């Protein structure tokens, strides 16, 4: 679903001598695989977002997040320099370990070029120096040697891509101009290693990959969003989101449910209602995040509660944003666990502009 972007781009918009010519996201564009798994450099923003739960043995459960962003600056430069900032790449990675109690996270940023930082077209292959997310032989591999930890994970798809909205056209606001191309790969089987505290732990688990690209995501009224993606225990997948306005109300909402039998149901704004259950205030930023939710989806109610409260990501240094992104468990109306996934809360500190 919708994810973060750079506050960066907003300033660049004002600075550009000549604005870039971004293609609009329009309904009816059929997504084709694996070609659309690669980069779409003409669009303003794009991301590959992998989140999931890991089992590190002895019942130790961890959450992780690996994200690569691509951003095309809003300037159409005639500069022939190979350093010209035609594409910028950013990456975040985080591990949620209840034993640590806060996120371990790290980030990378670079302008694309020289083979050091690239986002390939036609196949998933994004990298910044030694950080990479690459698909080869049908398997996605993330290699993230970070400051406090290392991730070396392989993801195998067990299901076909899940297209959101209208065949991958995902509307984000009342105007169809606010939209993205968006699909997910839920129920990815994870195997690999995590390095933390100098120890290498073999891990298994399940993950969720979002791939989304857009030129105009948020309309002028929206200040942020809440998003949740759950791998259901029965093999199904549930994605829900809402765009918030400045008063905290829902400006737009939507979602997708794929049942265990493979049937897909798309939700209209009226079908989705987010209600906060509990707030947590960050001792660092002072921002209060609703980290647990009761969400009405059609005639069902789903509750999500975090693996741990402090999963705030401060990426102000690289991307200029601070947000909450964390592992959550999902429960049904009778409070029985039904699955696990990730919750993202953006725009709570300062309005996001994408």
């Amino acid at each position, binding site marked *: 679903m919708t994810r973060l972007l*750079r506050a960066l781009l907003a*300033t660049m918009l004002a600075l550009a001598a000549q604005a870039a010519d971004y293609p609009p996201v329009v309904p009816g564009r059929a997504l084709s695989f694996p070609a659309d798994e690669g980069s779409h450099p003409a669009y303003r923003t794009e991301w590959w977002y992998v989140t999931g739960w890991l089992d590190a043995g002895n019942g130790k459960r961890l959450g992780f997040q690996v994200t690569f962003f691509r951003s095309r600056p809003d300037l159409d430069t005639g500069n022939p*320099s*190979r350093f010209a900032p035609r594409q*910028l790449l950013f990456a975040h990675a985080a591990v949620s370990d209840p034993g640590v109690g806060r996120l371990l996270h790290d980030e990378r940023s670079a302008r694309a070029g*020289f083979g050091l930082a690239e986002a390939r077209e036609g196949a998933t292959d994004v990298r910044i120096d030694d950080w990479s997310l690459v698909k080869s032989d049908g398997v996605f591999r993330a290699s993230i040697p970070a400051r406090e930890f290392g991730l070396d994970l392989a993801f195998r798809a067990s299901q076909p891509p899940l297209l959101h909205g209208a065949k991958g056209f995902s509307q984000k606001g009342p105007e169809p101009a606010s939209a993205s191309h968006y699909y997910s790969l839920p129920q990815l089987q994870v195997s690999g290693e995590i390095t933390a505290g100098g120890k290498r732990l073999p891990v298994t688990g399940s993950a969720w990959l979002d791939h989304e690209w857009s030129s105009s995501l948020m309309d002028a009224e929206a200040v942020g969003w809440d998003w949740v993606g759950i791998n259901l225990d029965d093999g199904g997948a549930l994605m829900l989101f809402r765009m918030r306005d400045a008063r905290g109300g829902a400006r737009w909402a939507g979602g997708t449910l794929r049942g265990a039998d493979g049937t897909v149901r798309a939700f209209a704004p009226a079908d989705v209602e987010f209600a906060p259950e509990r707030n947590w205030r960050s001792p660092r930023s002072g921002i209060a995040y609703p980290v647990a939710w009761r969400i009405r989806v059609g005639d069902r109610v789903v509750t999500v509660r975090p693996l741990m409260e402090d999963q705030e990501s401060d990426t102000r240094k690289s991307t200029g944003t601070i947000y909450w992104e964390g592992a959550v468990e999902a429960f049904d109306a009778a409070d029985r666990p039904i699955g696990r996934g990730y919750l993202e809360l953006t725009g709570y500190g300062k309005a996001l502009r994408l």
Partner: protein
Amino acid sequence: MSAVPLSLPRGLLARAAVLGPLAQAPGRAALSIIAIALGVALGLAVHLINRAAVSEVSAAARSLSGHADLVVQGPADGFSEALYPTLARVPEVAAASPVIEAEARVVGTRETLPILGLDVFRAAALHPVIAAAAGPRGDALFAEDGILLSASAARALHLKAGDTFTVQAGLTRMELRVLDLLPAGAYRQRLGIMDIAAAQWKLGRLGHLQRVDLRLQPGAEREQLRARIQALLPAGVQALTPEDQDAQAASLSRAYRVNLTALSLVALFTGGFLVFATQALAAVRRRRQIALLRALGVTRRLQFLYALTEAGTLGMVGAGAGIALGIAVAAVALKTFGADLGAGYFPGVEPELALTPWEALPFFLAGVVTALAGALVPAWAAASAPPAQALKAGDEERPASPSRGWRTGLILWILAALAIPLPAVNGLPLFGYAAIACILLGAVFVAPFAARTLFARLPVIPHAGYQVATAQLRGTPAQGSLSIAAVLVSFGLMTSMAIMVVSFRASLDTWLEKVLPADLYLRTGQSGDTAFIPPEAQRLIAATPGIARAEFGRGREIFLAPDKPALALIARPMNPERAQKGLALQSAAPVPAGRTPVWVSEAAADLHGLKPGDEVAIPLEGAARPFTVAGIWRDYARQTGAVLIDRDAYVQLTGDGRANVASLWLSPGAAIGEVSAALRARLPAGTDYEIASPAEIRAVSMRIFDRTFAITHLLEAVAIVIGLFGISASFSAQVLARRGEFGMLRHLGMTPGQVGGMLALEGGILGALGVAMGLAAGFVVSLVLIHVVNRQSFHWSLDLHLPWGLLLALGLALVCASAFTAALSGRRAMGPDVLRAVREDW
């Protein structure tokens, strides 16, 4: 005898013995204090200025490369950007930050602005300062006309955030917008930072980088990695550590700074000499007091300690004052002339003055020790005089006699002769300085012998005053030695410096004439290596009416050795005959057929160990090309060395047909002004060339030279003042000792004026001897300065030019000043009661 002092309280006696003389003669005490203060102040000021300059330069160099562990540095025109990913992929490299370095002229001012082109994302790991300053707005740097300015650059250019200004980069002008100012602590030097892509494009550096700063993985072995990285680099590109960079930056000015330190040592030495002179005078004056104290039972040892305590007190007060004065002098000098005292080594750097007590301590101690050392001989002599004899008059000749004999002097001269041919130590002419010290000190030791010999041969003239004066000189040659030594040292120093500076100036003038044979010169502004005269413009220039012939030259920077600073590569039309005519060739060798000749400057030859006939590999476009040294030429313009090759050969090897400078010969009858105007009109608008006649270039060069040597004139003046001071002190001492004699002469009918005239004659004769010996010693010292110190420090040869007129006039002035000082001191010291002095011994 011993019963008496027991009844006196010891502390009181000590106080009386130490403080009494100080209170009794505050003027003399002040004199000694001033002398010590002067020496300490000069030494400290030079040290402070040096330290400020060096730390400033290395801080500047270091801040430019941020927290880099290794810096891959290319010459001014850089290396291919393809090297950047290669370096970034070396496994032990944690971060690689590519950098464009350029210098652009700020249009409408005489200032140039160094510009760094950085990739903010890559630089963040190495330059937290930039990352923080660019902050959440780091992306703002992507604006192609945007620049961040350091606080000092903004101040110097009178700019603030949001302002626009025009710079000349290459041959085109462009308008830049000040996006923001970097925090004041970020870069102390003047500097602008642009996005690397914009810098490559706008500064004409597409495809090239000047530098890649590397941060290594923790635990990586730096020296080992440096060797491996060096192996990846093309010829002429080097992997440097920050320490190497410091050394390169500081080595540029090191010899100049050491020269200044040597001069400050001279100041301290003369300060010590002054203490000796005043203490000797004091000892004579207080001879009877001391004898009385001795008679009262003060032991010789105790008396000696009292005298040293007194000198130590003077030294401490003087050294304290000297430290305050030194700080003040350094502050004023830094503010007025900059860290290089006007020599132009550190442009754009704004040094700050700071002093810790630990740093000041050695200077303080030097002052105290100098005072003690100066007082040692007179104090010992005074303390050891037998009291009974000293209580009488007429015994004053003994204490002030520093006669050590001419043998010591001769040995010192032999040591000097042995030191002169020795090579530089670590690039510094230490043996040269030692030789100079030996020559001067030797002369001081030989002076009494020379004085005795000369006085014995003074002609007899039937004139009462003259005869009394010569008799006095003959009778007490040791008394006069002090005056002679003072004049000798001061005039010797002055002579040597004057000869050196005049030789340098004349050599520079001759050289400028030789290297500027054309009628008019055109060069590409001050924007240095960003500006070129492209081939089209060269054709346009050559075809300008009024120009008979045009020659184009290309200058760039190359590295020949990793531990040496960059040198200049000059490509211009050359052949062996022209080398004879157009270069100040010092030596030459025929170049075998088929070899490409290169002419290297003296500095390049010295620094890189080259001689005619040698093979040398010069890095061009990343490849080491073989050349043969055809000759060594004199070059005063580039202290780190220059190599000169034929332009056709250069173009053939590099394909680089651009030029930086054009030498133009005018057609007969063409006027310089008209041709300059025609050139400006023909060249495309917005381009920025400097057009100058040889006369203008020479005037500017000579002005820079004179500013550089301004400090030496100050030191010459100090030397002269100290010399006169020595004469005054010595005569005051003599006159005191000779009060009885003067009283007698007055009783015999001599007027005070005649006695004064007699003293003036004595002073004049002593002064003349000092000047003559100083001239001889100074001449020899100047040869050492020119052929050893200058050559080893700056690697350039000078032709000897003797400023006879100047030396003669100054010598004469010094003799007259000696005579006048002697008469004046005599008059002061005699006082009105000299007539009664006759009675004292009866």
